[in-house]
């Protein structure tokens, strides 16, 4: 049986999944990117291939996420797609009549509006990181509550405290002040969830028509407090897919599956032993002074980007 690999390199996490020819998830891994996407992808591959010693017959590879270009080159992707399309494809697969996708990841959030199975509108936060996973992580850390339990704390609250949600700076100072007055942690956390949902709906979802069914995905969907706050605010049921945290990677794999690839460019599961390096130099060809990045495999340059004029580009139109 053939399999399809999906790679989603985000700012906070790097996810890899394998799906079979029917689109059923076979294996998934979730790794923190920690500022080093190359290493994260390699580690992910190692972890992924552990169970079956990498003996799957991979027929195609899809890459997505903000690091998709890099991931595409390293893994040898056949399809490189933006994460909005990837998330929509994955949500549609699980909930065919979905009309709204709420996605909150590590450092960005998006809303995707679909009608009759087609994306009709979307928005991605452009202003700030308030309300994304990193901020919740940081707050959980500050309150010394494990992030996995953070959401359940919110559910315990009987009378949530109002927290300013417009900006992470306002939110944090509001939380600190209220905590110093003696409000209970769970009421503050519930208040925070409500503030973040308010900010989300008022900022990136502004002017969008939110119709059911609503799917909530991305790492933050693990937070039961956020789900409850969305449901309370939208007065609608919010559905969380089983593999909510790797939906981008699933979407990329599904896109690869549908691309009718005759021969994959996949470099194989042995990839974690290959030495990839990156270095950069400043081009002095014009006043732009572009920082050009070289991606090297075993010392040989396999891709280059960062230049505005494409002077340094390595001709390979299928990736990028």
């Amino acid at each position, binding site marked *: 049986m053939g399999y399809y690999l999906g790679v989603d390199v985000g700012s906070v996490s790097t996810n890899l999944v394998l799906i079979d020819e029917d689109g059923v998830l076979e294996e998934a891994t979730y790794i923190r990117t920690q500022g080093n996407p190359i290493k994260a992808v390699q580690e992910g591959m190692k972890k992924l291939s552990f169970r079956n010693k990498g003996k799957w017959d991979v027929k195609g590879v899809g890459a997505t996420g*903000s690091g998709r270009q890099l991931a595409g080159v390293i893994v040898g992707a056949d399809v490189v797609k933006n*994460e909005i399309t990837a998330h929509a494809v994955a949500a549609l697969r699980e909930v065919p009549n979905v009309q709204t996708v709420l996605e909150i990841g590590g450092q960005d959030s998006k809303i995707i509006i679909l009608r009759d199975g*087609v994306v009709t*509108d979307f928005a991605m936060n452009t202003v700030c990181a308030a309300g994304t996973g990193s901020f919740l992580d940081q707050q959980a850390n500050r309150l010394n509550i494990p992030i996995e339990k953070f959401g359940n704390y919110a559910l315990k609250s009987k009378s949530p405290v109002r927290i300013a949600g417009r900006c992470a700076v306002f939110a944090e100072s509001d939380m600190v002040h209220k905590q110093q007055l003696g409000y209970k942690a769970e009421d503050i956390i519930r208040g925070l969830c409500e503030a973040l949902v308010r900010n989300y709906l008022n900022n990136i979802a502004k002017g969008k028509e939110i119709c059911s069914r609503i799917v909530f995905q991305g790492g933050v969907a693990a937070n039961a407090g956020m789900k409850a706050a969305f449901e309370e605010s939208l007065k609608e049921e919010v559905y969380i897919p089983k593999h909510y945290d790797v939906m981008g990677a699933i979407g990329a794999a599904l896109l690869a599956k549908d691309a009718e690839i005759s021969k994959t460019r996949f470099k194989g599961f042995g990839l974690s032993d290959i030495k990839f390096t990156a270095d950069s130099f400043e081009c002095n060809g014009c006043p732009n002074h572009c920082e050009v990045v070289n991606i090297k495999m075993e010392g040989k340059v396999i891709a280059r980007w960062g230049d505005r*004029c*494409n002077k340094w580009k390595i001709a390979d139109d299928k990736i990028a």
Partner: protein
Amino acid sequence: MRRVSFPYMGTSYIPFEKLITAFGNEVVVPQRPTEETISYGTKYAPEFACYPFKIVLGTYIQALKAGANTLVSSGGVGPCRAGLYTTLQEKILKDLGYEFEMIVLEPPGRHLKDLMHNIKKLINTRLTLRDYLNIGRFTWKQLVLLDKVERLSHKTRPLEVKKGESTQVYKKCVELIAGAEEYKDLTDIERETQQLYDAIEKRDYDPIKIGIVGEIYVLMEPSSNLEIEEILGELGVYVERSMFLSGYTISNAVMDLFHMAGERDAKKMAAPYFKEMCGGHGRESIGNSIIFAKRGFDGIIQLSPFTCIPEIVAKSILPKVCKEHGVRFLTISLDEQTGKEGLRTRLEAFVDLLMAKRKKTKPVKVKSLVAKEMA
């Protein structure tokens, strides 16, 4: 002797340099905004000022460092705060210790006497009426030609077989036009540039069409909008901008003089949604979106400097306008970021969405309008 400089916006520096030189001044040609420009701008501008303000301030500093003693800028009539920006920039620069004269060219309709007085300051040589006519004819032709080759690049880019070829040809055309000395040169160059574009190998298909509207500076200066037209073109999209320099000059200088409304159509189209002027180009953004929709464009992209009030007003009206006219829109908020990935992600997704919409509503035509025009 006056050493004159001015803000950098698209290719406008080419005819402007010729004009100011012909008037008997030395010109310090402003630099294309780079990271250095932005660093100066953000360092000395108020934090809340918009991106165009910061870029222009940075450009002025670079020009003054290069020896300029006169800065020329267009004025504005508000109520957008950009109308007061020149005054504020002058104050900031003088506080920093630069010595120069700021000459503000206000729209002729309201400040004709002022404008004439200021233009006189820039004329530092004896010119006959014939000279004036010649200078005028040359500059105007240059301006129109620059716009023309840019439009051609927009048309050709999505159809090109070899990626990047149109951009190269466009750069070459601009160089040729900039090198022209007399009117006759320009007519020769016009023919030559057409041939250059004709020589590009093109595919024949109907590309997705996107109209770009928004605030003038981020619309016209590619370095401030992360070269959005180039990214879209290379994604196979035909791009058209609502504003070009020659059109803008006509509506804001010539029509204004006779108290005729510039960009009449755009304003008329916007009227049912947007009766009052809110400054900047908010109303034009709405009107031009409707015009694009009526012309059968697939989508609209609105470019807005972060915190730009007129564009924020337009943004909140656009969902209704676009729904009623059956087009999709995407707003891009611009500030000092130079990383293109975020923008590319949104543009790719937007193009995916438009393609899905087209597939659903109408069969793809084999021979395209754009391809026909190019043939």
